[in-house]
């Protein structure tokens, strides 16, 4: 369970990516966050493992406040996985070494145990044959699948994805989405995914948020938020950026594809 209580975060003057956000996400929920660039979507994710500190309010993860307690923070961080737009693999380590590092150093697994676990994860993301490659020898899609495997190796209860497919060539997007879809279908894991992939939201999201100017404007089922949003801002965004077609919305029928 992730709980934001009146969370406020400001960068410089006039730049308030989180403007008194209240939000609670149940365990196992798959939440897709969309909204225009600069809305505060990345910040919403980044304050959870405290990559950014918040100015006011409180964030509680599984009953532990991460706002003021260092001890809680360390505990919570190792339960949260994060996948970044730019993959952020460690370039001096091979794919399998990237996956093995944290289980060995944080969880105390032996090299053999970590290797076994990494091989299973490589199998799962379909990259066993790339185990010995360095990140520079992998395509973007492969790097992102390794990055997901690296996070999963810590067996996190919560996975955060910040535009995981935005930096990828179009033909590489699906292979990453497939991994995420299977993860969501498996259940049990809380997932917050900042993404504009409507197909993904439609297939597996329990809930969609629309953010604008540091505020969560829309919060509901994929159908509610994508097809019939209440606010004009959201409606415009859905038509112009996500190309959810107006006729579909008007008919209120099953959308897209």
């Amino acid at each position, binding site marked *: 369970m992730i709980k934001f209580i009146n969370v406020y975060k400001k960068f410089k003057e006039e730049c308030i990516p989180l403007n008194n956000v209240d939000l609670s996400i149940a365990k196992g929920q798959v939440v897709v966050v969309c909204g225009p660039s600069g809305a505060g979507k990345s910040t919403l994710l980044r304050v959870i*493992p405290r*990559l950014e500190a918040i100015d006011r309010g409180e964030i509680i993860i599984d009953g532990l406040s991460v706002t003021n307690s260092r001890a809680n923070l*360390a505990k919570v*961080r*190792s339960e*949260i*996985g*994060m996948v*970044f737009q*730019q*993959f*952020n*693999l*460690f*370039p*001096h380590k091979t794919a399998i070494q990237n996956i093995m*590092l*944290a289980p060995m*150093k*944080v969880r105390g697994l032996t090299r053999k145990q970590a290797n076994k676990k990494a091989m299973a994860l490589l199998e799962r993301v379909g990259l066993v044959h790339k185990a010995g490659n*360095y*990140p*520079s*020898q992998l395509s973007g899609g492969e*790097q992102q699948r390794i990055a997901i495997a*690296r*996070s999963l190796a*810590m067996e996190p209860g919560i996975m*955060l994805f910040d535009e995981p497919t935005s930096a990828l060539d179009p033909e590489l997007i699906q292979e990453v989405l497939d991994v995420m879809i299977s993860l969501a279908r498996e259940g049990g894991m809380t997932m917050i995914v900042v993404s504009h992939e409507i197909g993904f939201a439609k297939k597996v999201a329990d809930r969609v948020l629309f953010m604008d100017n540091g505020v969560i404007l829309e919060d509901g089922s994929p159908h509610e938020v994508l097809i019939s949003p209440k606010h004009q801002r959201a409606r415009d965004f859905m038509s112009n950026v996500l190309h959810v077609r107006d006729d579909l919305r008007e008919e209120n029928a099953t959308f897209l594809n």
Partner: protein
Amino acid sequence: MMVTGVKLTLLLLVTTTLISFFVGTVLAVMRVSSVKALRILGTLYVEICRNIPGLFWLLFFYFVFPELLPSEWGKALNTYEHYPVVAGILGLTVDNSSYVSDILRSGKLAIPDSQKEAAITLGLKPVQQWLYVMLPQMYRAVLPPLGTRMIHNFKNTSLCMAITATELTWATQQIESLTFRGIEATTIATVFYIIVSALMVAVVLGLEKYLKIDMTSITKSKA
């Protein structure tokens, strides 16, 4: 005398290279730390040490430092037969480590913050973030200038003759004044310096090849 000189020069090379590598790393980490006091302390050390000639540090540790200590300690140092070597190691290390830390710091600046963020979200503790993620990349990024610096430090070992450490350059001078066979001695010493420097270059090139990574994947991710 030449053999003793060679031995001592190599001893100075190995000890000061290793110690200044370690001290330089600690200083570099201090200087980019989020703790302000550490940053100030590290910067102060580097700015003071780097802006004073290496020879001064040798003279300082040989002549001045023992006087600054309680008198029995100072006396003990002054009469300790190997004190010139100790003073040489201290002086060279102080000088070299400040350069090493500066080179490493520039390596840190080449690595995007997102690397650290990835390490944090994997649950690695700060020390582990440095040991397994940041430092290995920093060393790789600055290997060529770091190698050049270590070779520079090697050549600086000859300055230790000024404080009567019986290293190679000191030995050639002694041979000249005792036997007038300075030319032969100097030739041998020159060849020795060239060979060791060349070996160090070879080690650096070998390491570069061995550790070769394509940094484009991380510089790209800065965007």
